[in-house]
């Protein structure tokens, strides 16, 4: 079940990745993030959505506004039922890739957000939760 402040978007095509970016931007503005922070979190969302598409053949993302005292923020939860990541430490290293990319997707998005949590095991899919707080 989703509360009013939440939305769930599918990631099944390249077009969906663009939709995720647009929706994350809209919610980031709503959460009061600065232009630079909006750009950072949208870029991270783009990387993570593409990861779900390329490595797991698709997945979904939950977008929600979160609060912590007077600060508000944006939380994104990407989930997929793909093959999972055997070595998380390695996957978070700059330049490490199995998909022919630059290897900046995971490690780069981690630097673009304030909180980053990655849960995965082989055969059990991947769950990435990121949060960006307004300054």
């Amino acid at each position, binding site marked *: 079940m989703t509360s009013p402040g939440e939305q769930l978007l599918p990631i099944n095509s390249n077009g969906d990745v663009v939709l995720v970016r647009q929706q994350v931007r809209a919610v980031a503005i709503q959460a009061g993030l600065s232009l630079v922070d909006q750009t950072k979190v949208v870029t991270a969302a783009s*990387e993570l959505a593409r990861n779900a598409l390329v490595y797991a053949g698709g997945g979904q993302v939950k977008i929600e506004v979160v609060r912590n005292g007077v600060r508000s923020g944006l939380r994104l939860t990407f989930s997929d039922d793909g093959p999972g990541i055997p070595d998380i430490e390695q996957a978070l290293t*700059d330049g490490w890739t199995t998909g022919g990319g630059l290897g900046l997707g995971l490690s780069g998005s981690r630097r673009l957000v304030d909180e980053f949590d990655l849960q995965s095991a082989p055969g059990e899919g991947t769950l990435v939760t990121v949060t960006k707080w307004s300054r």
Partner: protein
Amino acid sequence: MERVPILKLGDILIVSIQIDLEDQSVLALQEDLADKIVATGARGVIIDITAVEIVDSFIGRMFATIASISRMLDAETVVVGMRPAVAITLVELGLSLGGVRTALNLEKGVALLNHLDGAQIAAARR
């Protein structure tokens, strides 16, 4: 999928990205540009990203690829109009865009290409 149009001005090709780039559009643009450079014998490529709100690693890599391809085809590439927020994000992401020339706006991009051209001619004369 939307295709990004390529404009020709003298011996410069100008690409102004006005849409939210899908990965497929990015790949198509790379191919279209290479074809067009060969077909027109262009000596310079300008990619205008004034309207682009985010550049992720995939789009960033396209710039580097286009620069390498066009250099191989004897054309220089300049990326112009990158927004401050996009530049800050790219630095944080860890993307350096090595080998890609940049300029603040279209006008300065054209000036840079002409300058590079002039320098080449001067070097050839020496």
